[in-house]
């Protein structure tokens, strides 16, 4: 018989954040090379912006006032394309198996993917902003930093819920249908808050104390669902 195996080398310190960063980087690099989801998402966003302009008479004042809300519909719909791709890209060649079998916690894998999705979604959104500003004659630069803050908070909510459901629906035949159908109703409070904050901001209205309740809601939503997603992701991924 063979000599007994040398005891396995002491496992190296596996850093949660290093692994999450590696996964995030991998997703971003993959996406930037093919740009499939990005292009589809951009194109879809522009089309929706245009369609909304047609649905609501674009030169009227009322339309300017609701435009902040419309913007989030654009983000949500275009975002679904990116979120869907998130875990779907792992199906080819059984890559997902290799990632789950690796000495990486589900939470690290989730965080890496969520970060990559956040970056991709934000990229689409920030390209949409100038187009939106032009089509609806609203100023997105005037109160840029508060607006960026609201977009960041809202996008994180979208990302966290979307990524968890991307993992959940990855093996379903009707994945492209089921993901938006499950995700949008759950996101209603997040989208509502983001819309309530964005509409006055692009109109140039000052930030009032009343609006702070929406900020608190967004933060609460983000924190609660981030925690739940991190806690439940292992259950979703390991059969």
């Amino acid at each position, binding site marked *: 018989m063979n000599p007994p195996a040398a005891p396995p080398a002491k496992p*190296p310190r596996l850093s949660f954040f290093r692994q999450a960063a590696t996964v995030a980087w991998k997703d971003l690099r993959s996406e930037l090379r093919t740009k499939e989801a990005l292009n589809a998402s951009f194109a879809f966003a522009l089309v929706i912006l245009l369609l909304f302009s047609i649905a609501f008479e674009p030169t009227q004042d009322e339309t300017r006032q609701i435009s902040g809300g419309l913007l989030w519909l654009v983000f949500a719909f275009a975002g679904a394309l990116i979120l869907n791709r998130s875990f779907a890209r792992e199906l080819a060649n059984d890559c997902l198996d290799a990632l789950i079998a690796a000495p990486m916690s589900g939470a690290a894998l989730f965080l890496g993917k969520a970060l990559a999705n956040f970056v991709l979604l934000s990229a689409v959104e920030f390209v949409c902003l100038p187009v939106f500003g032009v089509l609806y004659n609203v100023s997105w630069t005037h109160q840029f930093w508060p607006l960026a803050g609201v977009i960041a908070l809202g996008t994180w909510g979208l990302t966290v819920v979307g990524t968890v459901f991307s993992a959940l629906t990855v093996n379903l035949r009707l994945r492209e249908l089921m993901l938006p159908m499950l995700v949008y109703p759950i996101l209603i409070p997040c989208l509502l808050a983001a819309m309530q904050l964005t509409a006055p901001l692009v109109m140039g209205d000052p930030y009032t104390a009343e609006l702070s309740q929406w900020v608190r809601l967004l933060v609460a939503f983000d924190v609660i669902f981030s925690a739940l997603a991190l806690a439940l992701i292992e259950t979703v991924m390991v059969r």
Partner: protein
Amino acid sequence: MKPVEIAGVWKFYGDFPALRDISFDVEPGASMALLGRNGAGKTTLLRMLAGLSRPGRGTIRICGTDARDRATRHSIGILGHGISLYEELSALENLRLFARIYGLENPDGAASQWLERTGLEKVRDGLVREFSRGMRQRLAVARAFLHSPSVLLLDEPFTALDDRAIALLQSLLRDAIAEGRTVVLSTHQLREALELATHVALLVRGRLAYTGERTGEMLEDTGWLYRQYGEPQSVTA
């Protein structure tokens, strides 16, 4: 502390038991061929050893710790049906990615070393989607061995491999066994797999029908084991 310890394992799909009360161990430095017809449960069992799914009942230990522990997973290398490589990344990028996830000290060095060992050094910057089938298979093998796992789990590794890849895999497995690593591979009784095996386990309808040393008899007549211990006469299991 044995490399693989399986005790009282059941796997359920709803109320249906796909695996029933499986118990066996694999000794250090052994190579175990897992035999069985399609649907007998080989892939199900291998996936549990790899930490990809959990048993409904029973325990699986790899090197003394639960298969799903993070530290344990560092000792396991898997080669499944898919190559588990990213089409849009280069060979080097793929290996570096896994090297980092496995926490290797020198990810670039390990990646380069294995590219050489599998004869892919010249195409290290080529994207996987441009590779031929044989090249992809060799890269998959590199990925499985990259982090020097002490336990290797392979699911029907010789099916759909070209000659060069088979030769490479056999050579690597022989080296691994000589180094004292443990190998568990599932197979459709292919000669290449049985040659390397020191032990066999036969799964029939989710149950362990036989486990023991691989004899010369089994090698010469690959259907022998099935006839001896295969499907029971009656339909009900």
